[in-house]
């Protein structure tokens, strides 16, 4: 029983994969400090210190991408926390088990769809002659709205479609938390004359609070992650000014335009700040909600 060598053996495959495919690319981060030329490689390319990082703040497009990332990610985080909480509370008020289960099954579904599929749906539905505009022009008689081509509306469209895709899945832990509340709290509140609304305010919400704190603090780590899959599939040159995010900018500036070193520097800038934010958020979650990763 005390022989632990088989346990080490069992970890070998994971260890090998992590060394090659996760830690391997980290060596490539050296490119961020080079004027990288593919034909010279990392060993042969010229070292240029922090020039690539300085360029991040010199190029207007790069700083714009950082600003866009922050705006989109922060909006997504805020809406993405509030909507699942509200929906979980509302759904828990449904007493008909059949309807409750059916609604749950339906709202989880979009989470499992690819962003390519969702983009396909949205391009069709939100297009100038798509379903939404069809309804809007019939009711209000206005001109069709160009949801995916209007820089002012693009961020809004991105946030709303993200919520549509993810709120059901985000609800799962909140629903479980609500289901785990001791019913005698509600009975006691009821005897004290609390209305249903007061019960939600003074029993349900406080019971959900630890979970809300954990999820909110952990989402802090995503502040520079605005969702490459989604934006890449929805954006187009018309909305680069408000919709281009760090990840899509890295893709275009490096792989499409050949600025490998610069692209790596932007990526490293993002990863570095994200790392700090994640560590801080885990510390906060541990401190205020006693959350441990493992």
């Amino acid at each position, binding site marked *: *029983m005390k022989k632990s060598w*088989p*346990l*080490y053996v*069992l*970890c070998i*495959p*994971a*260890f090998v*994969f992590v060394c090659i*495919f*996760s830690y*391997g*690319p*980290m*060596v490539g*981060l050296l*490119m961020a400090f080079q004027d990288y030329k593919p034909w010279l490689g990392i060993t042969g390319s010229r070292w240029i210190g922090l020039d690539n990082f300085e360029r991040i703040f010199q190029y207007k497009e790069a700083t714009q991408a950082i600003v866009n990332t922050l705006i989109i990610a922060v909006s997504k985080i805020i809406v993405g926390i509030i909507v699942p909480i509200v929906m979980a509370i509302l759904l828990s*008020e*449904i007493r*008909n088990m059949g*309807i409750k289960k*059916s*609604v749950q*099954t*339906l709202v*989880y579904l979009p989470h*499992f*769809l*690819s*962003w*390519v*599929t969702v983009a*396909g*749906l949205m*391009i*069709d*539905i939100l*297009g*100038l*002659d798509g*379903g939404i505009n069809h309804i809007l022009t019939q009711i209000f008689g206005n001109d069709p709205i160009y949801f*995916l081509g209007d820089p002012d509306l693009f961020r809004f469209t991105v946030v709303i479609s993200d919520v*549509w895709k993810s709120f059901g899945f985000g609800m*799962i*832990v909140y629903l*479980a938390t609500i289901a785990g509340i001791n019913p005698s709290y509600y009975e006691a509140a*009821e005897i004290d004359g609390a209305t249903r609304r007061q019960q939600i305010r003074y029993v349900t919400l406080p019971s959900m609070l630890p*979970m809300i704190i954990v999820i909110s603090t952990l989402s802090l780590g995503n502040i520079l992650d605005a969702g490459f899959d989604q934006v*890449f*599939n929805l954006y*187009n040159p018309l909305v680069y000014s408000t919709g281009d995010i760090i990840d899509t900018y890295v893709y275009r500036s*490096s*792989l499409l335009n050949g600025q*490998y070193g610069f692209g790596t520097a932007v990526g490293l800038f993002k*990863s570095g700040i*994200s*790392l700090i934010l994640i560590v801080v958020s885990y510390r906060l979650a541990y401190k205020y909600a006693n959350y441990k*990763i*493992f």
Partner: protein
Amino acid sequence: MYHKTTGYRVFSYFNYAFMILAGLACFLPLLHLLAQSLSSKAAISGNMVSFWPVGFNVDAYIKTFNNSNFNGAMLTSITRTVLGTTISMFILICAGYALSKEFRGRNVLMWFFIFTMLFSGGLIPSYILITALGLKDTIWALVLPGAFGAYNLILLVNFFKTIPKALEEAAFIDGASFFVILSKIYLPLSLPGIATVSLFIMVGHWNSWFDGILYMSDASKYPLASFLQTVVVQSNMQNMAMSQSEVAAMSEQSIKAAQIFVSTLPIILVYPFLQRYFVKGIVLGAVKE
């Protein structure tokens, strides 16, 4: 149980209506897609199709399944999903079982794995590594880089930890080996966890499109999601500019709809059966005492 006040009753009616609407909102777009895929060219260009096919026909599906690019992409996707899920689950179950035990260096190893979740080399270094390893244009470029996922490892470790130690000790005394204990005790008892993680990995592979575009130099090697990305998103970008489109472009819409629908069907079919597992899996994995 509850106050049957008028206020609560009114709220209840609105709540029921709102929740049913929310449920439908997550599902109607797909129904619209299905209706489009089964409708005639004229009906689509006349904007007559909502949630029911108009001018019913299955031409779009016949065209889709007669398209060798589509079929090839489908085969690539199936291969990568089966291969990728098998490899990932093997690695994760081995490591997850080991790390659910106490042994020297366990925490160091765990952090070594978790660090990959916090920090990564990013797009360009990963691309250059895959190229240097000679994996470009092979299915391994789609399967190997993402085979290990720290988040999934954490879920599995937490699952394995919930299994009582006494079971394992009793089996050891009876002479069972590590392998027997893992396959006869741990796997069956942590089925919700294993099913959840497998589902995530399967869906991930099926839906993954960017790596196909990145690592395959030739569109004929694309998996289904990458193929769809070029058909649906890239061509639509051009269509969007000249929106009041001609009839020819509109029949394309029906084929696109059919292709999206066929590619999504496996997920729609599998997921209701796995739903009870993943809900349990997420909750047990996330809500710990």
